[in-house]
């Protein structure tokens, strides 16, 4: 029975797998739930990565990413298509992550989810130093004010342009650049004092 359901879902999804995001949204709004499955499949990695960078551990990132898609499911009918679906999902993700950050302090990454040491590395000590450095930077970013933090995440890690970030955060390009400038200045001070 479950196989039959899976087969039907796969057959239906095949019809949509070649269409673009805009058509997927249209299909979803017209009642095709399988269109949303494809939206999740296409965007889950980007959403998860952004969430991971906010919280620094797999379990919380997976929970947040799920929350992002549940909110997207409820709100997709209001998506007007002015920006790309990816940009809209980034906006939902940033809102979910910042709301969560406002409620809870960032969690330290458990040691077993940290990147594994590569035996081919020249010096095992390098990997340890690199890991510790990454944790220091992550903690410093977590101390930035919310919009500065989101700007750093989207610019440095997601490689979004200032224009795209302005659409995600709903601010002007000038404000994004000013935020980025202040964020880097604050980061420099935080890293210098740690």
């Amino acid at each position, binding site marked *: 029975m479950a196989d039959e359901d899976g087969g039907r879902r796969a057959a239906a999804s095949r019809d949509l797998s070649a269409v673009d995001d805009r058509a997927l949204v249209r299909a979803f709004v017209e009642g095709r739930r399988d269109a949303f499955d494809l939206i999740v499949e296409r965007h*889950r990695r980007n959403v998860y990565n952004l969430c991971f960078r906010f919280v620094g551990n797999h379990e919380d990132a997976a929970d947040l990413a799920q929350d992002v898609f549940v909110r997207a499911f409820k709100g997709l*009918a209001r998506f007007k298509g002015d920006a790309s679906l990816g940009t809209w999902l980034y906006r939902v993700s940033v809102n979910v992550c910042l709301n969560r950050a406002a409620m809870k302090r960032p969690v330290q990454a458990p040691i077993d989810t940290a990147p594994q040491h590569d035996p081919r590395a020249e010096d095992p000590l390098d990997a340890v130093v690199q890991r510790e450095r990454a944790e220091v930077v992550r903690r410093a970013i977590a101390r930035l004010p919310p919009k500065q933090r989101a700007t750093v995440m989207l610019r440095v890690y997601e490689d979004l342009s200032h224009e795209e970030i302005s659409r995600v955060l709903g601010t002007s390009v000038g404000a994004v650049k*000013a935020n980025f400038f202040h964020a880097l200045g604050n980061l*420099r001070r935080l890293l210098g004092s740690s």
Partner: protein
Amino acid sequence: MSLHLSGRECVDAVDGTLRGARRTHLDACAACRREVEALKGTADAASATGEVPDPSPLFWEHFSRRVREATDAEPIAAPSRWVLTWRPMLIGAAAASAVAVAVVLGLQHRAAPAGTRAPAGAAPAVAGEMDVDDASMNVIAQMAAGMSDDELQQAAHPGADTRVGVLEDLTPAQQAELIRLIQAQMASPE
């Protein structure tokens, strides 16, 4: 010595997009160069530590299943009433308005005496420069500016299912309500 770079200009310099006189200033100003280099160093340090460990290969399927289970009980929200009822009508209204404006301008152009025409070399009149007092025409113009390419295409070439004469079918009260809804919609964030 010109003013030092602003924060935004420093960001442009970090991105390598600072040009012109400000770029010349940067080349000549050691203090600004130090600032930009420090910012770039911080951005690079952050970038070098941003790797996200790959989750287990099984995670993604599991994740999609979790999302499906969490949304299974949720109904698919219908598009807002505005989108369903007014947007197709507005597309028709925009097309009708564009045609009407073109006809009026054409008639005025023909009727204008030779002495009142713009001098040679003057910029031709465009829709954005029209002196339109009617508030509803302003609303239609703003709405058209906010339309997507697809919608403009549809407005320019309305299909059989698009009712171009929709404005004529509305009562004055309905027209006023239409204007109010457009203004409310344009004022609301996405």
